[in-house]
């Protein structure tokens, strides 16, 4: 988009980023252009206000995706979670899992819920997400009953919270690879 003339050389650590995330050079360049376009005040990093300025995002009930300050590598890493799973990429057993593996995609969503990063989605955290998504549309009681039911369904060890494994189990049949992937056209 736009006629800016970013070349790969202008992007710091482009090679490492590509290695880590699996984005092609063309994708990194486009993401860099987008990153610079979002950073309207040329601060060098992105803050929650910059994301607030994206019109379609303002309508999205989930905005917690970006609550902190992001530099370009972090920006790319977040987006890398949504790369389609490469079937052809050789799997080196010693290297860390690809960012866009099924497990990592699930972890990404899990962390959206698990705000305090204690490895479990508590009832409070679930309520918090529900509140953001629905705000004034449902009453507090309805929210609580929804939260209760959800935990009941997923919580297998009856500790009133959803651990990552329980989360993963309940998503077993969901086609994560398809539902959590964004395909770049070029």
């Amino acid at each position, binding site marked *: *988009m736009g*006629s800016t003339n970013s070349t790969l050389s202008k992007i710091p650590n482009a090679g490492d980023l590509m290695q880590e995330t699996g984005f092609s050079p063309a994708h990194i360049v486009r993401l860099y252009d987008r990153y610079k376009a979002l950073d309207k005040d040329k601060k060098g990093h992105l803050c929650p206000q910059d994301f607030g300025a994206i019109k*379609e995002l303002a309508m999205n*009930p989930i905005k917690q995706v970006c609550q902190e300050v992001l530099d370009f590598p972090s920006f790319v890493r977040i987006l890398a979670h949504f790369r389609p799973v490469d079937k052809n990429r050789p799997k080196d057993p010693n290297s860390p899992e690809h960012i866009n593996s099924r497990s990592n995609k699930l972890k990404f969503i899990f962390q959206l819920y698990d705000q305090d990063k204690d490895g479990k989605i508590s009832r409070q955290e679930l309520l918090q997400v529900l509140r953001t*998504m629905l705000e004034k*549309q449902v009453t507090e009681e309805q929210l609580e009953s929804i939260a209760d039911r959800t935990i009941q*369904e997923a919580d297998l060890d009856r500790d009133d919270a959803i651990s990552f494994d329980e989360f993963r189990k*309940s998503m077993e049949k969901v086609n994560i690879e398809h*539902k959590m992937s964004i395909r770049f056209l070029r």
Partner: protein
Amino acid sequence: MWISVVLALTVLPAMFGLSLGFTDLYIKVLVKTLEWAALRIQRAQKVPAVPCHLPNGIIQKGDSSMEEEIVELRRMHPHPLTGGNFTLCDTFYFCKKGIESIVEDQVTQRFTSEELASWNLLTRTNNNFHYISMRVTIIWGLGVFIRYCILLPLRIILAATGLSWLVIGTTLVGILPNSNVKDRISDLLHITCYRICARGLSAKIHYHNKENHPKKGGICVANHTSPIDIVILANDGCYAMVGQVHGGLMGLIQRSMVRSCPHVWFERSEMKDRHAVAKRLRDHVADKTKQPILIFPEGTCINNTSVMMFKKGSFEIGKTIHPVAIKYDPQFGDAFWNSAKYSMVAYLLRMMTSWAIVCNVWYLPPMSQQDGEDAVNFANRVKSAIAHQGGLVDLSWDGGLKRGKVKESYKEAQQKMYSSMISGINLNGSWEVTVD
């Protein structure tokens, strides 16, 4: 000496609306050259031919609605879904949509220049196209020389001539007493000067459906891409312009133009009072001897890939609307004025150092407000007609979002839709979800 010859060759045909065919020949040569360059680039990159631009962006977006997506997600849920349904996987949908918007959203991309499918040998559009071969580079170098050293000075002279004649001519005509003759001379003068300006941009304009040309006492609306739209439209007829009073050179032009024929210029303070504005426009339109007024209801420049929300003000005046669709061909030069990025002068220089401005203008049949239709729906109807004709995407986003924020009401609408999916299922119970 040379300059007078050139001027004679352009001014005389301009007065009579004839063309010597130079521009056509130039465009033909250009097209062949660009096709050749595109072929060489494809061969070098081993990329399959992309037949058209990617006006809709860089990621593939699904077409399904929120409901369809969430139902599909829930189909894969292991547990039986009884009443009051929220599932943890609902967030997948919103998360994906959110990330899609972060990478690319429908609104922001309309305020940057359209991306081309294949390089058109201008440095400014060089995105991802690398060094291909010596021949392409030589042609590019030749292009730079021709555009900057030959065409640019010529175009500047033409534009300067056109504008100064406009100012001087209209002032002189203004001295004449009001009469039919005065009006006709004024029209001729305006058209000639605009035609000279158009040649100053190497503009090749193709008008379609001239029988629908806006008539006197009507309102002409068009999609807005740049200030050049005025020159493009005024090449084929006289319009009364509507706009804010500016200072400096623009103000000078405005003041002299209004001496020879009525235009509607508003002071900044007047613009705030919507009723006063509407009244002045209504009075002008009611007078059948005055030229049709030209309005751009989007209120701001959009990049010619889409049409954004039309402000309802012009549609409340209650007269026949003559819609016009303008579509520029970006292959020859990007006409979009990104006012955040370029000043007016920088923009005009970019215009004059492009290959050419090639565009199509379609005059659409006149439309009027139907019984029981309110101004907003009428505006949307006209907008759809223009978008459809020009091959542009029809968006309901407000162009003012370029600078402003999204209203809370949009977010609430999305939340309502989602909450009805959660609680609505409770109520009618007719939601069949098969469980594996």
